[in-house]
């Protein structure tokens, strides 16, 4: 197999494919096959969401894309170094304030404190946490912690943003609000997104393309292009077309689970 993850983007015309998986298969030492022959492409300007049942290897896709795991077969190439990764939990460091948590990645990359403070302040403003810079994680709500986590990744100015079910633990109202904010960031910051979720309506609402995966071993069952324009009207969630698409995706999900 070949792996060309993290090859820096060429200086000329940037390649439209930020992430390109072909025939990616993941077999763990335990014998479990998490992914089987997955072809997936994420281009600039795209927000791709993967929906699938629990344990179908969705998260493994992100782990391979980010370099945390190496595929056992197939080609996984990522043509950017600027990758944001948002975990299921906010994974904040509880002893650091919001400001210092957001600064963390820039700090790990060896940037000067002045540089990272500026970046952190900008990112904190983007996620609407201005005024909470000196709060500790334990003083924040779940939604605010996730915003902090988003801000932390935004300081990397990512070209490719990976989301591993980031809003799964939040209540419906907070989740919808964060979905809107995420879409606003997607339009403003122009990153490409690869988003994992098990909520079909969240998938349809956020993405330009929805990929449905089957249960283990995970493989792609069907792909849907989402026709609604960006920036997206929050009320589109209650339109007939939206409902119809959610229905089709859910149907494909059920088919794939059999």
């Amino acid at each position, binding site marked *: 197999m070949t792996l060309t993850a993290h090859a820096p983007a060429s200086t000329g015309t940037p390649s439209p494919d930020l992430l390109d998986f072909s025939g990616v298969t993941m077999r763990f030492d335990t014998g479990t096959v998490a992914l089987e022959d997955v072809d997936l492409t994420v281009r600039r300007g795209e927000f791709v969401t993967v929906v699938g049942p629990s344990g179908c290897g969705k998260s493994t896709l992100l782990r391979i894309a980010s370099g*945390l795991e190496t595929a056992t077969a197939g080609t996984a190439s990522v043509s950017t170094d600027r*990758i944001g*990764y948002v*975990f299921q939990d906010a*994974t904040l*460091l509880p002893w650091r304030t919001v400001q210092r948590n957001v600064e*963390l990645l820039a700090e*790990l990359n060896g940037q000067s404190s002045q540089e990272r403070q500026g970046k952190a302040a900008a990112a904190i403003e983007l996620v609407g946490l201005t005024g909470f810079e000196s709060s500790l*994680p*334990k003083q924040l709500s779940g939604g605010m912690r996730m915003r902090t986590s988003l801000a932390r990744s935004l300081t990397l100015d990512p070209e490719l943003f990976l989301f591993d079910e980031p809003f799964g633990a939040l209540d419906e109202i907070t989740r919808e609000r964060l979905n809107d904010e995420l879409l606003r960031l997607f339009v403003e910051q122009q990153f490409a997104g690869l988003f994992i979720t098990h909520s079909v309506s969240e998938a349809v609402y956020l993405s330009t393309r929805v990929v449905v995966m089957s249960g283990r071993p995970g493989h792609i069952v069907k792909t849907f292009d989402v026709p609604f324009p960006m920036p997206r009207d929050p009320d589109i969630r209650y339109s007939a077309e939206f409902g119809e698409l959610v229905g089709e995706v859910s149907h494909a999900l059920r088919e794939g689970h059999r």
Partner: protein
Amino acid sequence: MAIDTAPRTTTQGRSPVPGQVTVRRSSAKVIWWQPALAFVAIIAVWYLIAGIFALQGRSFLWPAPHEVLIALVAEPTAAATIWPALLNSVLVAITGLAIAVVIGVTIAVLMAQARWIERSFFPYAVVLQCVPILAITPLIGAIVGYNFAGKVVVTVIISLFPIIANTLFGLLSADRAQRELFQLQRASRWTLLTKLQFPAAMPSFMLGLRTAAGLSVIGAVIGDQLMGQGSPGLGSAISVFSSRIQAPETWASLLVASAFGVAVFLLFGLLSRLAVGKWFDLG
């Protein structure tokens, strides 16, 4: 005919009456008098037992509280032994604890680097804790001497284990996603240790330090009793006074040793609060 629609009155007696609800008061503000009351009770019982011993003509076994107090503050010969002894024991305890922290943290950091190192060496840390200190005193004495150094070694052996165990547990407490966050930025092992594992280990380390500090007091006193040479500490004072059947002086030394232990425990509790109380719920 009118039908009686008035509410039945049979349940009236059982209906809750507003204002009769008793609220259990457990406010922290009023709790101080409870231990104070207990203290008075303890002193009273102490006097009672001392009285019984005195009636039997054996007051040398159980002195009255005020006799202990006199020995402690107003009797020049006893005071001249006890206070310098306290100082010597404090010195042994501090030195022993400091060495235990350095050795313990180093061992824990090494064990945290790889699972196989932990699995290979942790059992020996447990063995160290199980060593009967009395049995190896002659060995320690023969190697480093029955003096200050010997007492410090006893203190280190007694207080080392909680530091290793708690620091190791703390270092490994950072969760996988947090570690991966560092891994994604290609952070070095050193960066991972200083920016993630050390801060994450602090609450657990402070807990271990508090336990070890208490044990270092015990180590200093016992070590002093077992090792005959060097500047005498509280252990020697207790041995000497009790061999001379000087009950008030013996008890005064015991009291000082206990107060030393309590002071150390409180001090390290305060230190924990200062170090991690802001972000970690110490309970």
